[in-house]
C-alpha cells in the first residue's frame, strides 16, 4: 500500500480523506460532463452541462473512493458560470474515444 502522504493525500475540514492523483491516459482528452448539484438554501437540484479538456488530475473523496476529474478550458458551460474549470463526477463524465 502506498504512503498516503507521499501521494498528496489530505483530510478535509469535515474529516473526509482526499487522495489526489493523475491519470496520464486522460490528460488532454476532450470530455462532456452531465453535471449539476443541489442548490444551496433550497431543496432543489439543478442539472448543468459542461464540455472541455481533462487535465488528468483527479481526487478520490473518502472511502469507498468517490472519484472526481478536473475539466478545464471549458467550451460549453452554463451561461454565466463563474469559473473556467469544474470538477466532474467520474461516472457523469463522457470522454471522447472511450465507450459511453
Amino acid at each position, binding site marked *: 500500500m502506498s504512503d498516503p502522504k507521499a501521494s498528496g493525500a489530505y483530510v478535509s475540514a469535515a474529516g473526509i480523506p482526499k487522495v489526489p492523483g493523475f491519470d496520464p491516459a486522460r490528460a488532454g482528452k476532450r470530455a462532456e460532463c452531465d453535471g*449539476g448539484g443541489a442548490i444551496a438554501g433550497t431543496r432543489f437540484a439543478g*442539472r448543468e452541462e459542461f464540455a472541455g479538456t481533462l487535465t488528468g488530475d483527479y481526487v478520490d473523496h473518502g472511502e469507498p473512493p468517490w472519484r472526481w476529474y478536473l475539466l478545464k478550458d471549458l467550451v460549453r458551460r452554463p451561461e454565466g458560470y463563474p469559473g473556467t474549470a469544474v470538477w466532474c463526477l467520474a461516472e457523469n463524465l463522457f470522454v471522447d474515444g472511450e465507450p459511453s
Partner: protein
Amino acid sequence: MGRNPLHTKLCDMLGIDFPIIAFTHCKDVVAAVVNAGGFAVLGEAMHTGDEIGADIKWIRSRVGDKPFGIDLVLPASAPDADSLETLLSRIPEEHKRFAAYIKEKYNVPDPKGAQALHQWGGLNQDIARKQLEVILDERVPVFVSGLGSPAFMLKAAHERGMKVFGLIGKARQAKREIEAGVDVIIAQGYDAAGHTGPIGTFSIVPEVVALAGDTPVVAAGGVTTGRHLAASICLGAAGVWTGTLWLASRESDNDMIIKEKLVAATADDTVYSKSVSGFAMRVLKCPWTEEWAKPEAPRVLNSPYQMLLSSDYIQAANDHRRADLMFEAAGQGVSFIDSMKPAKQIVNDMVEEALSVFEEITGEPADA
C-alpha cells in the same frame, strides 16, 4: 385479463402492492403512502446527518418493517466555493435594480427575521458523504440519488442489504448507472416539477426501457393519474415516480395557500424558468417569474447568483403568506390535482383508474 397488470417486478422487488412511488419532502406523506400499499421516498437534500437519522427513526415508527426510501442530491459537478459576500458582490447593479423594481411594484415586504434562503453552504462532496454515512449506517431500505451517479457507493449499500435507485434525465446516464449495477433506474422527463432533463417523458421512458435489460425502469415527469400509470406500464416501465401529486394531499405540510393554488392550477400555470435559481426549473407562475420573462428584464443570472437575488422575494412571500406572490415547484400534471385528498385515497384512485384503463383496452376485467 390473465394477470394483474399493476403487479410489476418493482412490486416484487420492494414487496409493495402498487407500483407507485411518492417523492415528497413530508414525512407524513411517506408514512401514509407506504401504509397504503405504495412506496415513498423522502427528499433530504438539505438536511444534516442528524436530521436524516431522526427522520428515518420517525418513519420506521410509523411504517414498521415496510420499506421506504431516502433521496439525496449527490452532486455531479462542483465549482470552487466562494463566500456569500464574494458572491453577492458579483451580482450586477442592473439585476439588483430589477429585483428592487419587482419588490416595489408588487409591494413585496421585507422577510421576517432570519432569512433561511440566505444561509449559504451549498452541498458539496463532504456534506453529501456525511449524509450518506447516516443512510448506510441506518441501512435504509432504498437510497435514491437524485442527480449524480451513485456507482461509488453501490457495493457498500448492497452489502448492507439496501437497494439503490438512480434518477436520470438522459439515456446515456441511464446506461452508465445500469452498467454500474443500480437496482432501479428512474427516467425523468421534461414534464416534471423542478429541475428536469430536456427530454419529454414519453420519449425518455421507452428509450431507457430499451437499454435497461432486466433493471426495472420507473417513469417520472407529469405522472399524476391512473391513466398516466397505465400508460407508463405500456411504455415498459415497472412503476411511476410521482411528486406534484402529493403536494396538495391531506397529509402534506405545504402551506394551505400553496395547496389551493395547486388545486386551481393547470399546466398553463406552470413555467419552465431560470428566474428562481439560475437553473431552468418548472414552477407555478408568479410575479417574479412573469417579470423576469418580459423582454425588458435583464438576462437571468446563473446559479448561485439568481438564487441569491430571488431569495428575498421568496422568503418574504412565504413569511407573510402572500397568496399573490407565493409559488411552488410543480409539474405539468398539476392540471389533474383537483382536491386535497388523503394520500391513501390518492393511491386507491390511481390504481382503480389504471385498472379501468386496462379494462378499456383489453375488454377484460382487471383486478389488483
